[in-house]
């Protein structure tokens, strides 16, 4: 087990290194840098001024030197300065993380707490009207992009209540905090809930046909015990996999959702930073997201062993 963990951590480091290279060079391939953008807005370009500014920011150096400078700083905990605000990148990124984390966490909670029970119900009631209704709802959840759903929610709330939910940066009570995050989290979590439901349903249908389900009934177990205790425990692995993948996809959904709901989280910040070619922000933020995704995958693999005793990680 220990050897497995060591090997696994090593592989994660290799993955992160690969990602850092890809992000760094992809970002440089995009035409224009912050200096181009600033000078284009000014309308007048003195090549000497431009070169001076590029030198200040260090983007006149060879790419490899720039990369080493970034990684060296990252390893020392120095993320550099934002080109736009000129504040330390860490100061810009850190306060935004909890906002997005809450949003993403709530969205995942929605998708699991709604998707899994509905998937079980849909499988148990296979072929009934309830099953069909749930499947139609889940199909619509998969087909609706989250930004469109977000816009619909905003439009509907204006039409019905004459106002729309506005992000409240300093919620006083727990309930206020929930109200602040619940609507955008639901908008972005609807899709995940729909996907989770479909996977739970098909996985449950597979498990409900197994011999040990009949054994459980033959023991005298109630339907609820058969479905949730015996079947769901066996059906949960593919669901965990999907939720793990969704956790990564969620970031993409959050970019547009944070924009639609005007929430100052990392996802929207990332889009703005890309627009300004704010390299220190983009590079470090994407690295941060990569770390989260890699750890989410790792967690999923560890959860396999928790839920299925047949899976044991050893040499």
């Amino acid at each position, binding site marked *: 087990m220990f050897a497995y963990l060591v090997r696994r951590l090593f592989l994660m480091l290799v993955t992160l290194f690969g990602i850092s290279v890809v992000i760094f060079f992809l970002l440089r391939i995009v035409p224009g840098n912050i200096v181009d953008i600033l000078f284009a807005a000014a309308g007048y370009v003195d090549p000497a001024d431009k070169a001076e500014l590029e030198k200040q920011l260090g983007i006149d150096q060879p790419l490899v030197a720039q990369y080493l400078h970034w990684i060296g700083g990252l390893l020392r905990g120095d993320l550099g300065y934002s080109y736009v605000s000129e504040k330390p990148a860490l100061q810009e990124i850190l306060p935004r993380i909890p906002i997005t984390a809450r949003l993403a966490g709530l969205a995942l909670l929605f998708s699991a707490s709604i998707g899994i029970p509905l998937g079980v119900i849909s499988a148990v009631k296979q072929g009934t009207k309830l099953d069909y209704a749930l499947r139609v709802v889940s199909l619509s959840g998969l087909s609706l992009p989250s930004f469109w759903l977000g816009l619909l929610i905003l439009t509907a709330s204006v039409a019905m209540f004459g106002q729309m939910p506005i992000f409240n940066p300093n919620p006083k009570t727990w309930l206020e905090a929930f109200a602040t995050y619940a609507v955008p989290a639901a908008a972005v979590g609807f899709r995940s809930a729909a996907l989770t439901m479909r996977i739970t349903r098909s996985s449950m249908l597979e498990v409900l046909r*197994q*011999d*040990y389900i*009949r*054994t*459980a*009934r*033959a*023991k*005298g*177990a*109630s339907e609820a015990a058969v479905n949730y205790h*015996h079947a769901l*425990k*066996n059906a949960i692995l593919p669901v965990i996999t999907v939720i793990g993948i969704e956790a990564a996809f969620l970031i993409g959904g959050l970019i547009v959702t944070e924009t639609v709901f005007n929430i100052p989280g990392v996802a929207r910040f990332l889009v703005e930073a890309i627009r300004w070619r704010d390299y220190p922000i983009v590079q470090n933020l994407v690295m941060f997201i990569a770390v989260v995704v890699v750890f989410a995958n790792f967690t999923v693999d560890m959860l396999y062993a928790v*839920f*299925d*005793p*047949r899976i044991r990680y050893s040499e």
Partner: protein
Amino acid sequence: MADKSDLVLEVKNLKTVFFTNSGLFKAVDDLSFSVKRGETLAIVGESGCGKSVTALSLMRLVPDPPGRIVGGSVSLEGTDLLALDETQMRRVRGNRISMIFQEPMTSLNPVMRIGDQIVEAVRLHRNISAKQAQNIAVEMLRLVRIPEPARRAREYPHQLSGGMRQRAMIAMALACRPALLIADEPTTALDVTIQAQILALMLDLQKELGTGLVLITHDLGVVAQTAQRVIVMYAGRKVEEASVEALFASPKHPYTRGLMASIPAVPASGVPAQARLNEIPGTVPSLVRLPKGCAFAPRCKLAIKRCEAEYPPLADWGGGHLAACWRAEEVAEVA
């Protein structure tokens, strides 16, 4: 017939049908039999004759839809199981009537510890603490002769061999000391050496606990070793019933005779081995389109006009030996 109070199970005119796209078929048709306390009744027949559906009907676990029990009565210790509602039936299952299945490899929940699965069976029906139930589980594993029962109880099914798993299934089925145990081909999926052990174990425990046993099998060798009485089923119906001795000495139904002739004989030394195995020609008829008369007639060497026109009633040949054949007399003579 035995004294009524001695009967654990009495099945009368049981009828289970399946509604399928190709029509309605009668998986079990008008089946009656009974089991006494401590008695072993074997039900034999080839695949698709309704043996397993009979077992599931007794447990009321026939998948509905497509299946349904449409008639008859199943009386367990005087209670008609078919009249109970689902909640009452759940109290009977695993408690007064238990079942062991054919596939020990897949019949245990792979993500639950062996001990916990037995504990669940016990606590569903006995109002006792988890600790006491755990003790019973270990005791049951010891009873089915699993070495180091306390350690095995903490293991998962994949850590046990097929034979061990079937022992664990037996332990689970007997944990509440049921009045009736149904074993649906309990040894079919096991190695021959393990088969004998499992059968011996079941018979020992049955004697010890006084459980009635319904043993479903297609293996006449198993029947000869274990049962006191035998029912032969064909196409959903009982075609013959007799004590083991009477059945093997003089089978009255041509199908039973065919089954016996199909057992490969071990050639004696010096005698050339039989070149070809005996078989019953043809296949089991589709249960959707059963012939009007005897279902076995199309495959029967002795079939006459009457066999195709009228279904033969079960006739008593003395000593509780029943057979449904118009020409049972001739079968006996040939045998």
